[in-house]
């Protein structure tokens, strides 16, 4: 699902010109039809498929934050913050998109962010529950002291 921007401005201009043509010819067409009773010109302007999705930048940021959230799931503060921001950006990307749907990148960012937050929150809950045990508390404190001495 690549971001295929069309750098060729000629193609862009052509599509714009095509969409403009019916407007320029419309009054003429009406006159023609009145005089000729001829064939009607049915042209439906096609949407320019090369136009970038407005929310694409936000979708990219959402996926990057989702990856950071998963990779840093042990560093819970960073993971939760990155995950929550990733979810928010994915939703903003959806709201900004033309058809108000999650594009592939935004969906991937949303999923990764949610996974990162779930792992971190699960880990926090696990530590809180385990802290009821005095053996675990002692082990945890030793670990923190070891890390502080590095």
């Amino acid at each position, binding site marked *: *699902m*690549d*971001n295929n*921007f069309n*750098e060729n401005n000629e193609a862009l201009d052509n599509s714009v010109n095509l969409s403009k043509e019916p407007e320029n010819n419309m009054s003429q067409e009406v006159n023609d039809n009145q005089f000729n009773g001829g064939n009607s010109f049915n042209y439906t302007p096609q949407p320019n498929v090369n136009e970038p999705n407005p929310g*694409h*930048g936000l979708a*990219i940021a959402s*996926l*990057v934050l989702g*990856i950071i959230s*998963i*990779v*840093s*799931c*042990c*560093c819970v503060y960073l993971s939760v913050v990155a995950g929550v921001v990733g979810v928010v950006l994915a939703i903003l990307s959806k709201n900004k998109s033309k058809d108000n749907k999650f594009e*592939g*990148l935004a969906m*991937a960012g949303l999923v*990764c962010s949610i996974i990162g937050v779930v*792992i971190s929150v699960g*880990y926090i809950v*696990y*530590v809180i529950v*385990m802290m009821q045990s005095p053996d675990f508390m002692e082990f945890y404190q030793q*670990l923190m002291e*070891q*890390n502080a001495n*590095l």
Partner: protein
Amino acid sequence: MRTTEKKLYILGLGMSILVFFVWGISLFTPFSLKSIVPPCMLHQLTGLYCPGCGGTRAVMALMEGRWVSSFFYHPVVLYSFLLAAYFMVTNSLQFMSRHKWKIGMRYRDRYLYLMIGILGVNWVVQNLFIITGHPISEWIVKMDLPL
């Protein structure tokens, strides 16, 4: 240069400055990345790796030039570094040539999807080796790779 590439280039410049700053500090002071990155509690409690385990060691190995060790510790670090370096170098050359050399790497979504794929595969493979009792990190230390 298109908008997305411009934003990524500016972000890359900022990150490069930060990385060089940290690297410079680590060269001339006893500062170590391990002192600011907390230990992985998941690994300490269960023995298994989280998706990010090995990342700090991979970064430190890469900063010492041991790119093979860095790959085995955590391949995403080496992949990200190579991708970012290629992006920055080619876009810098394009910028300095005033866009006469159109060699600047463009952003593609597939690069991020590939990163997720490497992350997932690495996580599974590392934990499989741990479950069998032969963690990859032990091999790296035993082999004492020059690279």
